C-alpha cells in the first residue's frame, strides 16, 4: 500500500494589487504508515530494454560488447513474473526476445533464453528511434494495467527517420510507458534524447564510457522494479478567473509540466507524473489570481495526486492580501531555492548553447551565473560538472573563464545533468 503526503511551502501573503501566487509542494510517497491516502499494490510490471544496434555501435571496438553485458545484467534484475522483452534497434526495430508478441514472463528459463538472444546481437544499419519506441508500445499493449517501463540506449543521432516521424511516434507512445534514456559515447544529441525522455516521463543521462553501462542499467531496472503505482496524475484546481502560469517538477530533476495538462473540468487540470515508488518529489506552482481586497483570503489552488482515480496527497495553496509589507515582501525559502535551481539549469543550457555558437561573452556570463547559483545552493554535483567546462576564479561572484580545451563528454554531462536539482533542506530554519 502506497501513501502520499503533500505539503505546501509558500508565503501566502500578497501585497495590495498583487496577483502572482508561488508555492512549492513537496510530495513524499511511502510504502506504509504515516500518510493520509493510500494506493493499492500494482497489478504488475512490464519492462522493455531497447538496445541500439546501429552500425556505429561497432566503434570503438568493445562498445557493442559493453552494451550486451549491460543488457544481460538488466535482464538478470527483472523480477520473476514481470513481462519483458528486448528490442534490437537500428533502421528497423526487432524484438529479439521474445520473437513475437506478447511479452515474455520473467523466470530463470526466459531470462537465460533472452541472454542467449542478446549474445547474438550484431551492429549494422542506421538509427530510427521512433520505430523502436513504436515496437515497444505494441509489446506493452499486451500487458494492460501493468507499470510499463522501458530503457533506451543509443550512441547516435536519429538520422534514420525524419523529426516528424519521431514526433509522431512520441505522440503515439506518450502516456503508455515511461522511458529512461541513455546516451553512450559523445555522438548523440542531448536535446533530442532529453525531448524523448521528457515526453515519456523518464530520465536522461550520459554514459561516457561503455564500461559504465552495466551499473547504470542495473540501477535503472532496480528503480523501475521498485515502482508501486503507475500513471499518477497531478491534479490542480484553480479558482474561477485564475490562470496557471506554470507547473514544474523541481526535484529530483526539473521537468516543466505546464503544457502537458489536460482539462478535467473548467477549473481543474491533470498533469502526468508517471509511476511512483517510495520517493519524494517537489513541485513549483505559479498561479495568477484576480487581486482581492486587503484581509481577503482565498484558495489559489488545490493540489492533489490522483492514484487509480482517487485523490491522494492533497495540499492547499493560499493567497491572503495584506497591507503589511513585512509580510508580503518575504519570500518563501523553498520557492527561492527552486527558483534558483531552475535559473541554474537555464543558465547552464543557455551558456553551453552560446559556447557552441561561438558567443564567448554570453557563454562566460551565463556559466558564471550558473557557478554562483550552484555555489549559493550547495549543489556540489553540478559544481563539479561546471569545473570541467570553466575555470572558476571566484564562485561567490560567479567570476569564470571558459576553458579552451573541453572534453565533449564533460560538456554533454553538464548539459544532460543540468536539470538535476539540489533538494531544499526542509528541516532547516
Amino acid at each position: 500500500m502506497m501513501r502520499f503526503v503533500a505539503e505546501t511551502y509558500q508565503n501566502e501573503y500578497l501585497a495590495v494589487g498583487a496577483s502572482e501566487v508561488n508555492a512549492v509542494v513537496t510530495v513524499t510517497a511511502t510504502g506504509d504508515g504515516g500518510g493520509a491516502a493510500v494506493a493499492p499494490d500494482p497489478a504488475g510490471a512490464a519492462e522493455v530494454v531497447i538496445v541500439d544496434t546501429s552500425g556505429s555501435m561497432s566503434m570503438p571496438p568493445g562498445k557493442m560488447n559493453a552494451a550486451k553485458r549491460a543488457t544481460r545484467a538488466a535482464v538478470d534484475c527483472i523480477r520473476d513474473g514481470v513481462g519483458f522483452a528486448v528490442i534490437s534497434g537500428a533502421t528497423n526495430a526487432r524484438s529479439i526476445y521474445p520473437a513475437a508478441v506478447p511479452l515474455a514472463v520473467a523466470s530463470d528459463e526466459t531470462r537465460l533464453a533472452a541472454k542467449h538472444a542478446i549474445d547474438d546481437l550484431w551492429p549494422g544499419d542506421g538509427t530510427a528511434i521512433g520505430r523502436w519506441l513504436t515496437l515497444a508500445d505494441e509489446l506493452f499493449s499486451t500487458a494492460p494495467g501493468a507499470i510499463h517501463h522501458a530503457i533506451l540506449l543509443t550512441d547516435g543521432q536519429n538520422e534514420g527517420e525524419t523529426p516528424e516521424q519521431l514526433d509522431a511516434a512520441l505522440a503515439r507512445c506518450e502516456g503508455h510507458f515511461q522511458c529512461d534514456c541513455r546516451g553512450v559515447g559523445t555522438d548523440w544529441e542531448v536535446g533530442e534524447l532529453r525531448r524523448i525522455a521528457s515526453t515519456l516521463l523518464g530520465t536522461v543521462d550520459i554514459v561516457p564510457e561503455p564500461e559504465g553501462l552495466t551499473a547504470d542499467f542495473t540501477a535503472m531496472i532496480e528503480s523501475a522494479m521498485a515502482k508501486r503505482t503507475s500513471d499518477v496524475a497531478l491534479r490542480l484546481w484553480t479558482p474561477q478567473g485564475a490562470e496557471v502560469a506554470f507547473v514544474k517538477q523541481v526535484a529530483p530533476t526539473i521537468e516543466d509540466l505546464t503544457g502537458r495538462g489536460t482539462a478535467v473540468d473548467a477549473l481543474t487540470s491533470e498533469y502526468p507524473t508517471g509511476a511512483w515508488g517510495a520517493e519524494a518529489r517537489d513541485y513549483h506552482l505559479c498561479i495568477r489570481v484576480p487581486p482581492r481586497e486587503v484581509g481577503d483570503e482565498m484558495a489559489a489552488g488545490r493540489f492533489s495526486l490522483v492514484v487509480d482515480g482517487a485523490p491522494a496527497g492533497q495540499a492547499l495553496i493560499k493567497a491572503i492580501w495584506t497591507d503589511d509589507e513585512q509580510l508580503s515582501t518575504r519570500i518563501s525559502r523553498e520557492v527561492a531555492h527552486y527558483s534558483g535551481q531552475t535559473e541554474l539549469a537555464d543558465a547552464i543550457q543557455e551558456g553551453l548553447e552560446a559556447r557552441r555558437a561561438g558567443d564567448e561573452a554570453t557563454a562566460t556570463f551565463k556559466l558564471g551565473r550558473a557557478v554562483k547559483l550552484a555555489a549559493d545552493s550547495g549543489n556540489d554535483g553540478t559544481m563539479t560538472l561546471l569545473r570541467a567546462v570553466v575555470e572558476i576564479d571566484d564562485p561567490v561572484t560567479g567570476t569564470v573563464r571558459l576553458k579552451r580545451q573541453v572534453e565533449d563528454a564533460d560538456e554533454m554531462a553538464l548539459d544532460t545533468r543540468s536539470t538535476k536539482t539540489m533538494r531544499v533542506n526542509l528541516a532547516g530554519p
Partner: protein
Amino acid sequence: MDMTHDAALRCEACHAPLMPDDRFCEECGARAGADPEVTEPGEAGCELCGAPASALDADGYCSVCGMRRRQPGSRVEVDLVLAAAVSDQGRVHRRNEDAFHLELVDDAVVAVVCDGISSSTASNAASRAAADVAGGVLAAAVRDGADLADATAAAAEAAHEAVGQVPATSRADLGSPSCTFVCATCAEDRITVGWIGDSRAYWIAGGDARQLTVDHSWASEQVSAGVLSHDEAAREPRAHAITRWVGSDAPSGPPQIVVERPAEPGRLILCSDGLWNYAPSQELMARLLEALPAESSPVAVARALADTALARGGHDNITVAVVDSPPRRRPQA
C-alpha cells in the same frame, strides 16, 4: 470605525445610515435591506461570487472563486480576575483593528482601548502601538506615584508619537495610520479617564450605567452645541464621523479628561464602538448589564458584552475592558 457614510442608504428599522456593503445596521443590528440574497451568518454562501453555501468547504473556501468566508470570532482575552478585557474581530471585518492594554500595577489597574480607523492605512498597527505605549506611560506613573491626570495627558501624547512612527503602507487612497483612544487608571479612590475619539468609558453601579466620556463625533458635537437633538443628529449621514483621533494627521490637543470618585463600589467599562453601536445610549447599556447575573466576574461581563455585540451582527471589531472598582485586594500569597 468608519468615517464615511453613504447618505442614500439607511436602516429600515432605525433609519441610521448604512455603508453600501453593510449586511447589518451598525446602530440596531437589524438586517440591512430586503435583499433576499442576504442570509444569516453561517447559512450564507460565497460573499464574492454568490455561490451557494453548499459550494463552501469545511474551512469556508469557495469551490468556484476560491474566496474564503470571513472567519467570525477571532478573539483575544485577558483575565486579571479583578479586571478583564476581550477583543473580538466580529463577523464582518477581516481583521481586528482594535487593541487594548490591561495591566495590574500594585492595587491599581491601567486599561487602554484603541480602535484603528479603517479608512486609514495600517490601522491595526496604529491601535496596537497607541495602546501599548499609553499603557506603559500610565503604569510607570502609578509606580512613581505621579499625578494621574498629568500622566493621562502624557499617555495620549506618547500614543500620538507612537502612531506617527507607524509606517504607512503603499495604499495612497488611505489616510495615515490613526486610531481612537480611551484610557482609565483605577487607583485608590479615584478613576482617571482620558479619551480622544468615540471609544467610550461607562461607570456601572447599582443598576445604573453612566457614560463618562463624550464622543468626539459630529453627532455628539451637534447635540452639545444645541443645534440638533440626539435623535436628529443620529439620523445624519455623518453622525458617526469622528472629529478627533490619534495620528499624525489628527487635530492637535490634549485628551479630554474626567476624574471620577465613586461613592460606592462599581465597575468601569471601556469599549470600542463595535460594542456601543448595539447599545448606543447609557440606558441601553444598563439594560444589557442588568441581564447578567449580579455576581458576574469582570471576564464574564466582558465576554457577555462581546457575545451580545456578535449576536446582534458583529459588524465592527468589538473590544471591551471591565474593571472592578475600587479594586478588590488581591489574595495575599
